[in-house]
């Protein structure tokens, strides 16, 4: 679909709502807005700039996310789109929306705890209990600090015995 957008018709709110269509390819239940990686949207005439930041330095999904943003906006007639990556300030799970956390839990991934308990350098120092996304028990155990993607750790519930991913605090 080709559509002409001039500065009067392009609104930042419209671009933002279109970005809801772009999901994190590794956690497809989350949009990039839920994840908190969209840092800015700039509009100048018919030019659109979307500023994003990676969750982790080596996040392999970034190239795909860039392509998907271009494609999603292109589908709605925005041809002049620039996607910029910034590193500062560094992404934190604090930027994840509550809606995003709810979606994660419903999907079977424990959402990140609030930040203050984490990333302490002391060995064997454990953060606050992580709640099982299946049976809601707090009686859970860390299996591995690392999981299937850079942003997750592996846990097991001692009550329902199910293993689950925890979206680690960062």
């Amino acid at each position, binding site marked *: 679909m080709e559509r002409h957008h001039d500065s009067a018709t392009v609104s930042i709110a419209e671009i933002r709502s279109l970005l809801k269509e772009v999901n994190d390819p590794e956690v497809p239940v989350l949009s990039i807005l839920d994840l908190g990686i969209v840092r800015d949207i700039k509009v100048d005439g018919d030019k659109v700039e979307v500023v994003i930041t990676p969750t982790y*330095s080596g*996040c392999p999904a970034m190239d795909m996310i860039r392509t998907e943003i271009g494609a999603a906006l292109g589908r709605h007639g925005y041809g002049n789109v620039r996607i910029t990556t910034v*590193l500062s300030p560094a992404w934190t799970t604090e930027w994840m929306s509550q809606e995003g956390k709810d979606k994660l839990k419903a999907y079977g991934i424990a959402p990140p705890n609030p930040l203050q308990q984490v*990333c302490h350098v002391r060995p*064997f120092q454990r953060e606050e209990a992580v709640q099982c996304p299946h049976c809601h028990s707090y009686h859970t155990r860390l299996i*591995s600090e*690392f999981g299937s993607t*850079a942003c997750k750790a*592996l846990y097991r519930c001692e009550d329902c015995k199910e293993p689950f991913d925890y979206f680690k605090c*960062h």
Partner: protein
Amino acid sequence: MSESTFLFQYVLHLADDVLILGHRNSEWTGHGPILEQDIAISNIALDLIGQARNFYQYAAQLSNEEGISATEDSLAYLRDGWDFRNCLLAEQTNGDWAKTILRQFFFSAHQVDLYAWLAKGNDTTLAAIGAKAYKEAIYHLRWSSEWVIRLGDGTEESHARMVRALDELWKFTGELHTPVPYELWATGAGIGPDLSLLRLKWEERIKNIFDEAGLTYPSTQWMQTGGKEGRHTEQLGYVLAEMQFLQRAYPGCEW
């Protein structure tokens, strides 16, 4: 050397350290002692190679400003061994799990203070990369510290392996804090830390964990250096042979 050359060399050094260590760690992918730790070391490799990309992109930008054509890929894949500026510690072979763990522990214990420093340094690009990488380094340090304790204070066999790993790697640790000219320049410019101050923090981190792990902090003073100025051990050649093969054999190949 001019200021821009010093900065370029410094950024390249930061990049090469994490690319080479990341590549070494990635050699474990599919070969880890158990699945969870295979995933862990592969994730650490991914973080490190991601950090390397950020540094290489900046290095490429710096050389383009000087009119020299370079990309993150050409810097990683098309330079020879003597052009690499990584510490000798990064290129050492994986050996067994104990040696890989100890190498990562020594490095992470250095990186956390280095990156924390870069994050508040005068170069805004390095500050951004450093602030991001710091959070990852903290996580790697905790993970590797736990393994050093688990193995050092574990069975007779695991303890013996940690002692052997320590024996093999210790002589490469001094280079982390022995400054070369581009690092002295970076310190003077407020871009990089004073390595003699970082050394004190590093020693304290190592001693604390070694105490818990039942390992003796070595008294050996003699240290092997040279990597940061392109004089490497034979191990780097093997890393490059594997890592660069595709781009050397099929220039510009993409998939």
